[in-house]
């Protein structure tokens, strides 16, 4: 069977997120629990989590999480890293041995910073450097796969049901102000750890439920800008689109949402003049980054999240609040599991971004 990257694999899914607006750090135990009632939205072929604020001691360094197929490729990759990065810490990511999780790869994490000399000679910033290095490792070092490369955040994913993956990675031992989770229901994957979600680039992590119809249009466009869609998954391409729009073009989150889930022309024509022009401009310039077909995504980034549905709202997604917590999930049951007291459960409209930020200075 072909794995992610060799063929395109559609899948159904479950997503969850929780964020503390005051930046209070929460144990991962709760979000792992939230996936239990949505067990049937996954099929055991992938689960994962993104956690923000978990590495305060290394907050100025990029945390690279890697899967290795074997020691050979680990050595090759580490050599690559040593040449280009200052590595302040390198370790295996602690896991639990459990019956439900098998065929583990080698799982490592490194806290790194690009060498200044390299940045100077390439005339790029450290973030771009990280992106390029990630692309390079993932496309050229056979058996090595960077699946997380942001600061003070990390992605944890595996083949298995998400609640098992959470326990496997001992997430109850981490504390973060923002957690997202994903349970996967791919239709034809042999189960490859790298193919599980969240998908992340820098501090952007995306969990996604859906199957977009615009995939190849988006992919072929975004690949013009140096991105390599190695996994051929929706989540991957959406992550790159978000990175391109937010980081490379400098759009705001709202503007980004207006590209990805652009309002219909008819809707635009009824908007007030200034807004109408902006929306028309965005649709015209970035028309190839419109995403159609069903999706509900939760984008995590340093200091906040954005949840977004496709413009027809072809996938479920609800939001609830309690105190300084905001919960988002495919199903209300997941929110209730995390916080039975959650209030004001509501369903955002198609194309309506839900943006939640942690108070400035609290993350």
């Amino acid at each position, binding site marked *: 069977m072909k794995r992610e990257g060799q063929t395109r694999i559609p899948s159904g899914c479950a997503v969850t997120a929780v964020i503390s607006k005051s930046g209070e750090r929460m144990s991962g135990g709760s979000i792992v629990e939230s996936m239990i009632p949505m067990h049937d939205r996954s099929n055991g072929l992938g689960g994962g989590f993104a956690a923000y604020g978990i590495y305060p001691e290394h907050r100025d360094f990029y945390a690279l999480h890697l899967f290795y197929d074997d020691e050979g490729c680990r050595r090759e990759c580490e050599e690559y890293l040593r040449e280009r990065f200052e590595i302040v810490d390198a370790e295996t990511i602690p896991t639990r041995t459990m019956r439900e999780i098998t065929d583990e790869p080698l799982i490592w994490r490194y806290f790194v910073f690009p060498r200044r000399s390299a940045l100077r000679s390439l005339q790029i910033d450290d973030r771009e450097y990280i992106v390029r290095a990630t692309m390079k490792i993932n496309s050229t070092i056979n058996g090595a796969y960077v699946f997380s490369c942001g600061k003070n955040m990390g992605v944890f994913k595996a083949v298995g049901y998400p609640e098992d993956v959470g326990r496997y990675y001992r997430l109850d031992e981490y504390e973060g102000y923002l957690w997202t989770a994903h349970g996967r229901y791919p239709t034809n994957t042999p189960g490859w750890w790298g193919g599980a979600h969240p998908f992340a680039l820098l501090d952007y992590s995306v969990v996604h439920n*859906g199957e977009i*119809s615009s995939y190849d*249009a988006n992919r072929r466009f975004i690949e013009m800008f140096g991105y390599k869609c190695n996994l051929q998954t929706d989540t991957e391409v959406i992550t790159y689109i978000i990175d391109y729009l937010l980081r490379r073009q400098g759009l705001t989150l709202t503007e980004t949402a207006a590209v990805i889930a652009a309002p219909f*022309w008819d809707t635009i024509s009824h908007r007030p003049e200034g807004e109408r022009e902006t929306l028309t401009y965005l*649709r*015209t310039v970035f028309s190839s980054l419109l995403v159609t077909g069903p999706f509900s995504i939760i984008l995590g980034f340093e200091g906040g999240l954005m949840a977004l549905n496709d413009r027809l709202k072809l996938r479920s997604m609800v939001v609830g609040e309690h105190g300084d917590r905001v919960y988002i999930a495919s199903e209300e049951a997941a929110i209730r599991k995390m916080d039975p007291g959650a209030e004001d459960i509501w369903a955002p409209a198609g194309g309506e971004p839900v943006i939640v930020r942690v108070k400035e200075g609290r993350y």
Partner: protein
Amino acid sequence: MGVEFIYPEFEVVRNSSRCIACRVCERQCSNGVHTYDPDGGVMLSDESKCVNCQRCVSLCPTRALKIVKSDCVPRENANWQADTIKEIYKQANSGGVLLSSMGNPKPLPVYWDRILINASQVTNPSIDPLREPMETRVFLGKKPRKIERGEDGRLRNNLTPQLELSMPVMFSAMSYGSISYNAHKSLAEAATELGIYYNTGEGGLHEDFYVYGPNTIVQVASGRFGVHADYLGAGAAIEIKMGQGAKPGIGGHLPGTKIVGDVSRTRMIPEGSDAISPAPHHDIYSIEDLRQLVYSLKEATQYKKPVIVKVAAVHNIAAIASGIARSGADIIAIDGFRGGTGAAPTRIRDNVGIPIELALAACDTRLREEGIRNDVSLVVGGSIRSASDVVKAIALGADACYIATAALLALGCHLCRTCHTGLCNWGIATQRPELVKRLNPEIGKTRLVNLMTAWRHEIKELLGGMGINSIETLRGNRLMLRGVNMTEKELEILGISHAGE
């Protein structure tokens, strides 16, 4: 006679039990095939004049007529086929270059017919265009590489002029002269009503049609016929015609018999003089010359009009497209080898150029590899025959399609391929007033609008089936296509997988 005799290609079959001798056929045949015999009270026919345009067949009120291919042919020979033999006879008779019209009729591969479209099943929903919005609007033109913000932090509109299309189809270039006033008027009015564009071709713009300027693309070709400042300013965009799919590498020739009255005035050449467009633009012998013309035209129109560069699909088309994209052009139009023409040397029409499907795929891929696909829009023509051809072209990477033959068919053309005689019985490819009036532009416009409306519905249906609700996300979405009956190489060039993969 004797050795020069060539048996007529068609037979006029008249069902005498149905013919009421109303003489409509006689009155409607500009070739003089039918005559009335008052003695016998019956109609007679001279099939040697018949071109099988089907005018008489279409108007016969009792369906007493049909035109069939003559079965009086030379002895069968797979190598020396009847048409080939006839061509030899004709050339032996005349010593001349064979002329023909419309697109390449040879049985070369039509890749559209080997490409199949995807649809949603189970894992994501198809979308019903009758229930949900389904968008077909397209903007053609260069897109900025980077956004800009004003001091207030708001996005600044740094877009260069764009063409806005309600659907990704335009009427491609057909000159006034090669086609009639009424044909042009039909196209202009239909384009206006549909919110798309038609193209003047290289014949200038008749003064009556300046009112359709906002939906007009004015063409500048190697003959520069009818080109002046007002003309350039009249349209919504300017197209530089470097080549034409039906006859890559050669120019055009509109015989003096068609340069009459308004045609002569519009082209700005004397009545009766042949209008000869040179094979190349004599001020463009290289890509940097093209760049100069692009910017000359932009200067002449204060950078208010996008500039299109139209080229024929030839072997090295991807590299050519890359060059054009870097020349300052906003839109590249590529014309495939099945594209039509009012007149072309038969050998050229049938043997020069490459299929548009391969040219399109190669160009789109190349422009993406070079990261400049968003610097230009791609418009393709050269036998786009249906809504599914449009959908396949967009999925291969086109922004929009040019149609001409399909538009002419809507206007009544029966593809008899004798445009060059100027005797078009349907009032399209003629300048004879009594024939021109056979095309009532009110009817012509309605039929074009009908055709495009129908295609738009079909495009929406196909999009909805794929779970797509905006044409933008179909563009270059090659995953929506699969090939059948193709070699690995063909699939590779098209960038699609084989069906079943």
